[in-house]
């Protein structure tokens, strides 16, 4: 969170008509967030580790909540590339609070108010009058570097206290309305207001199984697969249906099928699917179906599937690495019959790198590795593999 930002060319901090937004994602997926920001919002972003920064018209900021590949959003209030830290720790804390106080808050606060649809008073007309409907807030601090003579918690108190003095908001550490974030790097300091108090991936999955893939990660996988209208997209090991559920809400024009060996998983997929219809009304009946099946003995017609997208068992919480050595190639060869030659493709997520690397040679008649890249998934190093289906027709 506190890595030097490159804000060259971004004008959200100097132009009232623009805001600079920080959008976070699972590390490794930044290029897909960049793509979504361009496609959905028409904005040019810049990637940093785990984040994409972009400028957007101030009145359009609420549209950022539509992004499906993003976990959290903040609006920048101020940034300096060279913060001069005084010598003593007490003074460092005071200078941070001074810096926060000096920033122009009005625009960012109005943006926060619009996004959160907050009905109360954010900026009091008269500083000294007591007003009842002010927001509750907390201050958070993220710090990197060893030159600071203070702890993050101390900065939170110092800056939070000053903000309370200026605005008269009530401090609340949990279930707050507004979060101010101080990001302190070695030389850089920037201040933001959170536009999401609950991460954006808290959508969709009402019936959680014990192995759920975050909707934002699912959205990244679906985006990476470049679905075309009319594509049949299969998740042969769908669990609770996270991938088909997310994919079928993304307006890709694809038809999503999830197959799962456990009855519980298939039921959960179905329940999640019907919940979406109920929650969001008719136009959002997801174009998906779930079935109970064994991926190694698939019951779909030859060449009926265009894209496979799956979160393969990592071999940690489900199955084992020894099982994966056998499961991965057998699954991919079983899928080869179903997937259309030449145009078909598979996007696979796994943490079991070794099993996957050992799989390449065993499936190369039908699957050619296109590329792979690393991501951070729940603290584990995951890998996303893209395979293209070869021209070779399936021979049993």
């Amino acid at each position: 969170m506190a890595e030097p930002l490159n804000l060259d060319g971004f004008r959200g901090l100097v132009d009232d008509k623009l805001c600079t937004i920080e959008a976070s994602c699972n590390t490794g997926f930044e290029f897909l967030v960049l793509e979504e920001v361009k496609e959905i919002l028409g904005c040019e972003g810049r990637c940093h580790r785990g984040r994409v920064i972009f400028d957007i018209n101030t009145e359009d900021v609420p549209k950022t909540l539509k992004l499906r590949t993003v976990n959290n959003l903040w609006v920048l209030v101020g940034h300096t590339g060279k913060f001069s830290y005084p010598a003593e720790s007490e003074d460092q804390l005071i200078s941070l609070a001074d810096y926060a106080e000096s920033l122009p808050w009005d625009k960012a606060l109005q943006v926060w108010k619009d996004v959160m649809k907050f009905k109360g008073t954010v900026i009091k007309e008269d500083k000294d009058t007591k007003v009842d409907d002010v927001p509750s807030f907390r201050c958070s601090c993220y710090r990197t570097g060893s030159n600071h003579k203070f702890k993050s918690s101390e900065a939170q108190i110092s800056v939070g206290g000053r903000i309370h003095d200026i605005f008269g908001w009530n401090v609340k550490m949990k279930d707050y309305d507004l979060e101010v974030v101080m990001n302190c790097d070695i030389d850089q300091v920037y201040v933001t207001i959170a536009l999401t108090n609950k991460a954006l991936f808290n959508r969709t999955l009402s019936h959680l199984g014990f192995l759920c893939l975050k909707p934002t990660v699912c959205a990244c996988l679906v985006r990476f697969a470049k679905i075309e209208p009319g594509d049949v997209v299969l998740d042969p090991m769908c669990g609770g249906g996270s991938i088909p559920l997310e994919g079928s809400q993304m307006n890709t024009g694809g038809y999503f099928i999830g197959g799962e060996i456990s009855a519980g998983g298939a039921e959960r997929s179905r329940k999640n699917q019907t919940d979406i219809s109920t929650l969001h009304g008719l136009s959002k009946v997801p174009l998906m179906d779930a079935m109970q099946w064994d991926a190694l003995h698939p019951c779909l017609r030859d060449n009926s599937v265009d894209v496979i997208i799956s979160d393969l068992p990592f071999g940690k919480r489900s199955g084992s690495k020894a099982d994966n050595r056998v499961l991965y190639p057998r699954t991919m060869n079983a899928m080869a019959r179903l997937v259309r030659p030449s145009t078909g493709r598979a996007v696979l997520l796994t943490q079991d790198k070794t099993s996957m690397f050992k799989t390449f040679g065993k499936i190369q008649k039908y699957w050619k590795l296109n590329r792979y890249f690393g991501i951070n998934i729940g603290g584990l190093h995951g890998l996303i593999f893209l395979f293209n289906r070869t021209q070779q027709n399936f021979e049993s």
Partner: protein
Amino acid sequence: MKLLTHNMLTSKNMKTVTTGYPLIIQARDVKVMEVEFRAEFISRMIPKIDWECLCRAAEDLGHLNDLPKSVPDNYENDEDFLKKAHHVMLEVEVINGDLICPESSRKFPVTDGIPNMLLNEDEI
């Protein structure tokens, strides 16, 4: 289970079965739900499905209505046709019933909208 999914299902993964298509539907409960019409999607799906199987399935469920027996030329621009296809492919769901293999007569149950296609050890 939507009829679009049924259109892709086969029992050919069974040891003794050669073609295993189409699976015959014996439905006890059928549900019709409204799904937003997307012309481009339906248009792109038409060449990928077996039209005869779709008609047969619709007929078995009593939802054939005036669906044409064959796909008309220039179907991409025939919105009336696309809407009829859309209805049958996506809006008619088998909730409870059985899918029957035409060669082995093996029944695959559909429960609460979910077909169970798992095979027994002696069928693989």
